[in-house]
């Protein structure tokens, strides 16, 4: 191309020098180049201005005289220069985020948030009030719909999200919202929000609805906390009772074992003693049978010896009918037999 050089020259011109040399240059150019040539160069530049590059996270949407004509994928492309065609490049992979019920004041760390009560306080299914703070993440599903169907997308998503969340929360009792129902609420809100946005044909996909902070309103917070501590108290009482049971039952079992062992010991002792005594008796009996009179006498005398060694005795004369003596408490009165 013979024009490249000229082009280069033109673009390389520095402005101050350009102004200084303007007159001179003009004369030179006038001599050398004719008007059509200049026009041709301008035309060329104008045509080149139609080159555009679509980044990997974008798509290109080309409009010809305002009418959407084609969608282009990432990479370099060409469109007819302005004002015939123009290109819009929405970021289709970017996940956008909306905060409802709170605003991030500073990203931190530590992050700081500010509550927006008029957004977060809502009625529950059992006519209680609960504070729900959540975020919505969404991205572009259909770039053409996104660009041309709905005015003010963020506002639209926010309105729809609020309406959806309140509709779902409005069907759910407060206890469920505060405890086990969170996941379900997220899912249902997400589905409902998607349905609403599809109805508007907004070309958006709801990536997630995430509950951030769900709590009872400040005015009743204390009562709710007390319920939690009451539950703990309940468990404490029960645990204490269990501990009491675990303390006394083993002891009772021990005591029972002790009682039974004592009884066994008693039985054993009793039997052994009986056996022993009887052994002794039988051996004495054996001896006695060999010489009854003698042995009996001997045993008698032995015993008397022991008794008389201890006691005080009174010897009475032979023949006595009856006698009354002021004796001590333990008195054995033996009547004498007549011979």
């Amino acid at each position, binding site marked *: 191309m013979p024009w490249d050089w000229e082009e280069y020259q033109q673009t390389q011109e520095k402005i101050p020098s350009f102004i200084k040399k303007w007159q001179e240059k003009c004369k030179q150019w006038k001599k050398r180049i004719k008007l059509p040539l200049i026009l041709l160069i301008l035309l060329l530049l104008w045509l080149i201005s139609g080159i555009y590059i679509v980044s990997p996270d974008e798509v290109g949407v080309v409009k010809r*005289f*305002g009418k959407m004509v084609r969608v282009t994928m990432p990479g370099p492309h060409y469109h007819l220069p302005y004002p015939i065609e123009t290109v819009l490049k929405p970021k289709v992979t970017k996940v956008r985020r909306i905060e409802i019920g709170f605003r991030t004041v500073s990203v931190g760390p530590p992050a700081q948030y500010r509550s927006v009560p008029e957004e977060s306080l809502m*009625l529950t299914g059992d006519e*209680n*009030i609960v504070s729900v703070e959540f975020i919505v993440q969404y991205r572009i599903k259909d770039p053409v719909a996104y660009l*041309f169907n709905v*005015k*003010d997308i963020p506002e*639209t998503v926010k*309105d729809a999200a609020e*309406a959806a969340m309140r*509709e779902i929360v*409005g*069907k759910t009792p407060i206890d469920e919202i505060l405890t086990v129902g969170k996941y379900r609420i997220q899912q249902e809100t997400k589905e409902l929000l998607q349905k*609403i946005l599809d109805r*508007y044909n*907004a070309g958006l996909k709801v990536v997630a609805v995430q509950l951030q902070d769900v709590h009872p309103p400040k*005015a009743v917070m204390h*009562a709710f906390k*007390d*319920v939690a501590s*009451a*539950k703990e*108290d*309940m468990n404490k009482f*029960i645990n204490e009772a269990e501990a009491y*049971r675990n303390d*006394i039952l083993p*002891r*009772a*079992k021990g005591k*029972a074992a002790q*009682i*039974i062992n*004592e*009884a066994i010991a*008693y039985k054993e002792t*009793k*039997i052994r003693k009986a*056996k022993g005594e*009887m052994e002794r*008796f*039988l051996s004495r*009996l054996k001896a*006695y049978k060999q010489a009854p009179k003698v042995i*009996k006498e001997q045993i*008698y*005398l032995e*015993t008397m010896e022991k008794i008389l060694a*201890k*006691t*005080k*005795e009174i010897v009475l*004369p*032979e023949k006595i009918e009856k006698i009354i003596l002021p004796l*001590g408490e*333990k*008195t*054995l009165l033996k009547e004498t037999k007549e*011979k």
Partner: protein
Amino acid sequence: MRYFFLILLIIFAILIWQSVFIVDQTQQAFLLQLGKPIKKVFGPGLHFKLPFVQQVMRFEKRLLEYDAAPAEILTKDKKNLVVDNYSRWRIVDPLKFYKTVKTIQGAQARLDDIIYAQLRIELGIHSLTEVVSEKRSELMEKVTQRCNKLTAEYGIEVVDVRIKRADLPPENEKFVFERMRAEREREAKRYRSEGKEQAMKIRAAADRERAVILAKAYEEAERIKGEGDMEAIKIYAEAIRQDPEFYAFIKSLEVYQKVFDENTQLIITPQEPFMRFFFKTQKNN
């Protein structure tokens, strides 16, 4: 000559400028010919018109928002609700639209009247719980459809009317908070008393179990002792049977030995067997 050419060029450019117009993808347009609308709606793209006598009127084709100010509405059960609704609408017939409301602001004022009136009617025949939870979506659907019928003459389609917020007015909120607090207090009380009750049951059961364990042990113990006693008696009987006489003799002596102590006074007569020698010796002397 050259100037003339230039002027011609400029005139030509203006003519072209005046006889084409561009409508964006987000717009729809029609032409006014000397102030009178021509019944043809143009979509996006490049179109031609007569220069000077025709003027382009462009209107939004996109979905537009309309967010009403919150308003207090009375439900069927005579409860106040602060309803904040929003709506999404679009211009479907720009000609009608232009004839009636002219501008978006005008349309919004009209929408405000229509939607608010319809909401009032619809909410007035439902109770608060129906509005908040049970029939929320179908209610909104109904309002949307009715509004649609009414807005058709303005060239407007109402795509959606939604209750964004339905809250209680502040004075009613206080009552709700009171009730919530009372409910929670009741619940807390219930938990505590339930805990106490359970604890008492556990303790009582434990006490009972302990008593039963011990009683069983005593029963068993008595039985065992009885067995021991029986066994012993059998042993005694077995042995004694061989010579009761002799046993009685021995046992008696043992008893005497045990019973008599240093405080016992014995009165002994000479007939006492072991005394016989004693007296005999005396006589013999």
